[in-house]
């Protein structure tokens, strides 16, 4: 088993862990943590693809790397927006819950 395949399989497990945290956690902040773990695991799969594409004197294919860098920053923007929404919800309703209680 090569190192890349090991990281790829690890990323598959990490994606499952992150997705479970996202689906099951009632607290929106913990859902954000799960979402970030899931996203970064998918990025690692990109990294595995890039590493396997090493050729012509380059250690890795640079195009997936550029996509992952862009994705990391965009994931940060989404997390920041989600946190701002959550804090506003908490300030407005006093609760950090996403459940609609008919109020």
């Amino acid at each position: 088993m090569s190192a890349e395949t090991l990281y790829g399989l690890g990323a598959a497990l990490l994606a499952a862990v992150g997705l479970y945290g996202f689906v099951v956690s009632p607290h929106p902040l913990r859902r954000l943590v799960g979402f970030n773990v899931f996203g970064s695991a998918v990025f690692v799969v990109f990294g595995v693809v890039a590493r396997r594409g090493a050729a012509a004197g380059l250690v890795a294919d640079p195009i997936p790397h550029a996509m992952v860098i862009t994705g990391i920053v965009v994931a940060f923007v989404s997390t920041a927006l989600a946190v701002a929404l959550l804090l506003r919800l908490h300030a407005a309703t006093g609760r950090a819950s996403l459940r609609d209680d008919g109020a």
Partner: protein
Amino acid sequence: MSAGLALDAGIVALLLCAAGAAVAARSAFAGVVGFLAYGLALALAWVRLAAVDVALTEAAVSALTGVLLLGAAVRLRASEAAVAAERPSRGLRLAAALLCSAVAAGLAAVVLAFADPAPSLAPDAARRLPATGLDNPVTAALLSWRAVDTLLEKVVLLAGLLAVWSLAHDRAWGGRPGPPPRATRDGALALLARLLPPIGIVTGVYLVWTAADHPGGAFPGSTLLAAMWVLARMAGAVDAPAVGDPRLRAALVAGPLAFFAVGFAGYAWADGFLAYPAGWAKPLIVAIEIPMTISVAAALALLVAGPPVRAPSR
């Protein structure tokens, strides 16, 4: 099993433990701390995957994300007990675990079924690298071949910032985010906020400058600059600028404007949007990168600061 493979297995195990701790922690605060550890271990994994630029970006951005989430976790601490009661039933949790295992199995099958020999754009990249005047293929990909992606990402950054600002109360529109600064009583934090920012600013600018030939980049560099501002603000040494300040807004749009200007000029002096004329690639890339670093750093810092809460002073 070689030493390298043993190290990789150790890093993957560390990643799984950190992610598990982040997801299964008892409180949101502990979960975010686990996420911070996960981000650092992930940077190590990126280095092992020969992606040093990505490792730098991941380390910087996940640290900033951790700071953001920590602040939110502390502010939401009082309401955590009420939310915990909404935990789904055991049956639902089991179903979710089965679903996630299916996702993991699918991803693992995809990873194991990768084509051999692997398709790759590396030969094309290596062939077109000398024309850009750069030595770092990832920087060339970000700012020359896939420059449109980077431009649109800048726009997304600004759009996200506008969305965060739009959450302000009407009376606070145009004002300053966060509470007024109060010099911290912690001597260690005050010392750190005085000592680290100069080093951080030099390192950030260096990261942007050296990305032409060595691993680095505008993104880890500007994240570092934003983090230094966040540190100074945590120590109460600086105040957040007013959101309506025209100088701040000029700094925020300078990057995308320069990018668009060079892009449209590409119709005039080369053969398309964001095309560079021969021999001019590197100076144009530097001309884009400098305002871009300022804009990205300002946008990231303001995203951490949040929406304005203090009414603007007239």
